[in-house]
């Protein structure tokens, strides 16, 4: 993957403990950089043409026989399409099974804080952050689904117990998500609910929007598994462009 000034559309440093959303266009990439290390970027993706179609955790995991997400994986929608593929990842193990922090979790772990007292340093939680951003598109609680937790590694031992991995992300770790379809991206940088830090971790990130070449027929993500190839084919049918299989 080539990172050049020519393919950079936009770049922004984004604070920790904050939320935002954006429309990503098919063919463009969202690159996330954990500038200080230890960040968490929680994310949902929905089809702007029909938000009933969205990123689906079980279909993505079982379709690729994986519990973690990394380079080469593709994110599948519940409609069987490749929404987005991971074309670069220096970290190697991103979580999508353990959800996001809610008000109860944040208060229990990091204390009570109100805007009235703390102004914009109040301790935002992930669920409220998602609901605020979803609301901008006329969506709400019923549209929530399992989210991605970029830069958080959650391992599972032989008995199924969750383990907060020792090797969390380092300064400069980066992941690039190439969008195969247009998507509403809902995201926040509130801490992962299993983060053992004593104080609310407020970790900034940088995000970049880049224009990438369309995936070739021998693209790493497309060919990673036959399941991925079929998901790319379903996306091709959705866009009704020539090429692909058959």
């Amino acid at each position, binding site marked *: 993957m080539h990172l050049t000034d020519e393919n950079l559309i936009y770049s922004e440093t984004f604070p920790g403990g904050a939320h935002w959303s954006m429309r990503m266009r098919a063919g463009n990439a969202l690159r996330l950089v954990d500038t200080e290390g230890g960040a968490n970027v929680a994310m949902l993706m929905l089809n702007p043409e029909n938000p009933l179609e969205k990123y689906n955790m*079980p279909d993505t995991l079982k379709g690729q026989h994986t519990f973690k997400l990394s380079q080469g994986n593709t994110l599948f929608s519940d409609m069987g399409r490749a929404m987005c593929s991971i074309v670069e990842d220096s970290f190697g193990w991103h979580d999508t099974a353990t959800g996001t922090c809610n008000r109860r979790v944040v208060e229990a772990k990091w204390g009570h804080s109100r805007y009235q007292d703390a102004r914009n340093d109040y301790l935002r939680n992930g669920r409220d952050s998602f609901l605020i951003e979803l609301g901008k598109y006329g969506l709400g609680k019923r549209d929530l689904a399992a989210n991605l937790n970029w830069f958080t590694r959650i391992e599972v031992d032989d008995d199924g117990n969750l383990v907060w991995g020792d090797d969390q992300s380092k300064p400069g770790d980066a992941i690039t998500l190439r969008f195969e379809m247009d998507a509403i991206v809902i995201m926040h940088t509130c801490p992962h609910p299993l983060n053992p830090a004593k104080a609310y971790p407020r970790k900034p990130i940088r995000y970049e929007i880049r224009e990438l070449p369309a995936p070739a027929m021998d693209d790493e993500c497309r060919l990673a598994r036959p399941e991925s190839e079929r998901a790319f084919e379903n996306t091709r049918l959705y866009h009704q462009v020539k090429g692909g299989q058959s």
Partner: protein
Amino acid sequence: MINASQQLAEQASHSHIIAAGDYWMHVVKAGQTFRILDLEGNQAVDTLFYSAADPAERYSATDTIREQGNVYLTAGTKLLSSEGNVLMEIVADTCGRHDTLGGACAAESNTIRYSLDKKCMHSCRDSWLLAISEQDVFSMSKRDFTHNINFFMNVPVTAAGGLTFEDGISDAGKYVEMVAHMDTIVMISNCPQLNNPCNAYNPTPVEVLIWDAL
């Protein structure tokens, strides 16, 4: 955790056999005990739960996994809602492990998992779509489909971060039983999947039983 129940089938206030490929949608009242019985073994029972008072509050696989610190469901597991409240608590389990990572089969996911020409085979999400349309008293739509429990399915996570679909650990006569902490809409698709060895390519009936609170 294997934990047998003291409930007697003949004392159940309600029972129903769900054929493979059918749905069942029913309100289980707070305090009632609800059992799913695997009649012939290794049958996937794709189940969603909603608060009857406000179906926008529904079973959350991710909150349930995280708050119990374990990816498998068994006796002792509290099935948490999206609001962090307990919908049901598993009180008895003779199977020992149930999955909530693998989701439900759908025409579309079958095209990814098996082949593009599998899309006309019956699926769990089709059964749910029929359920919400026919049972319109609940005013649900596809928006309300979230990540379900696959009772009796064995989907181990490996130390390397893989997800595997192992042979079932259930058998004819094994069951899982839970007590409702709030009035709960239960929506089941008794899975019609014919492409997966986990049910020996043979979907079979299951029985649901309900006991009133003592």
